[in-house]
């Protein structure tokens, strides 16, 4: 801890670090250097004298934000309380005649099997059910030896850049 130094810019003339000085010149006006090893232990318990806050960085001129493509507004009005019933096969739960699909929940289509593999083929394929047989590459596009690059079209880069 003895050599621990807080450097607050701008550096004084005696600064050993050339790079620091370079940075210091470019930075806004700040309180003077306070070296903890010089202050410790005699004055450490005392609050350092209050210094006026540095002037605020001026805001950079506002760039006009790129306007996202406008989604057409959906027609106003009460939403239907229930999704329309899907056709039979796939989405129907055995005990529920018309499932209610809610936001922020996940659902998997119900499997209703028709034909099955014979036992030898089932073991070989890893499933009894042809509709669940999804070998490498059939489940999704990201399964091969090449890295998966899917671009969801129309997007623009965003973030801090």
């Amino acid at each position, binding site marked *: 801890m003895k050599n621990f130094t807080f450097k607050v810019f701008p550096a004084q003339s005696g600064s050993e670090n050339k790079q620091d000085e370079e940075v210091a010149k470019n930075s806004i006006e700040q309180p003077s250097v306070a070296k903890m090893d010089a202050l410790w232990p005699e004055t450490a318990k005392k609050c350092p004298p209050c210094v006026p806050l540095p002037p605020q960085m001026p805001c950079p001129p506002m760039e006009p934000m790129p306007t996202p493509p406008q989604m057409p507004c959906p027609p106003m009005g009460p939403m239907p309380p229930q999704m329309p019933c899907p056709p039979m096969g796939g989405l129907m*739960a055995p005990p529920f005649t018309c499932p209610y699909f809610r936001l922020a929940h996940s659902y998997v289509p119900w499997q209703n099997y028709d034909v099955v593999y014979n036992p030898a083929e089932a073991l070989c394929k*890893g499933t009894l059910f042809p509709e669940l047989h999804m070998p490498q590459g059939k489940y999704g596009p990201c399964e091969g030896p090449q890295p998966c690059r899917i671009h969801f079209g129309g997007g623009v880069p965003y973030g801090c850049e």
Partner: protein
Amino acid sequence: MWIYEKKLQYPVNVSGKNVQLAKWIITQYGGPDGELAASLRYLNQRYAMPTERAKAVLNDIGTEELAHLEIVGTLVYKLTKDASVAELKAAGLGGHYADHDRALFYVDAVGNPWTAAYIQAKGDPIADLTENMAAEQKARATYNWLINLSDDPQVTDVLRFLREREVVHFQRFGETLNYMQEYLNEKKYY
């Protein structure tokens, strides 16, 4: 209780010694998305499930994962059988040899030991079933990468079988989640 059956769920053959491949495959033995984690996760979540169906699904898939653990263990055992110290060293298993000789251990592909931090039991059936669906997807993806790394067609055949089981389990957990959400919703309003 469990009763052991003296056979594998799926036959395991290898073309020969392949220490490098074994080092990668062992992640499905003791890695974050491996069979040990899967089995222990599901068998442990059974107790907090509110429906009989969910308990059955977790029990039976958790049990099948133990069979998969034995398949992966057999792969690693056969691929490293009679490997010399030089061969282990060359494949980056010198550290494993120092700690375990040729014994199997629950580690991932870079040697990290298995930890219960890989799994969760939240007590919320929707959260737990959703975790299980994610776990099946991560295991499917791991088997994809292992298939891409494999240079032994007989090993690839076993990995292909195990990968397909993840797809089937995902479907069953998804159906269990469908039912659970309806069950909890009905319980709330009627």
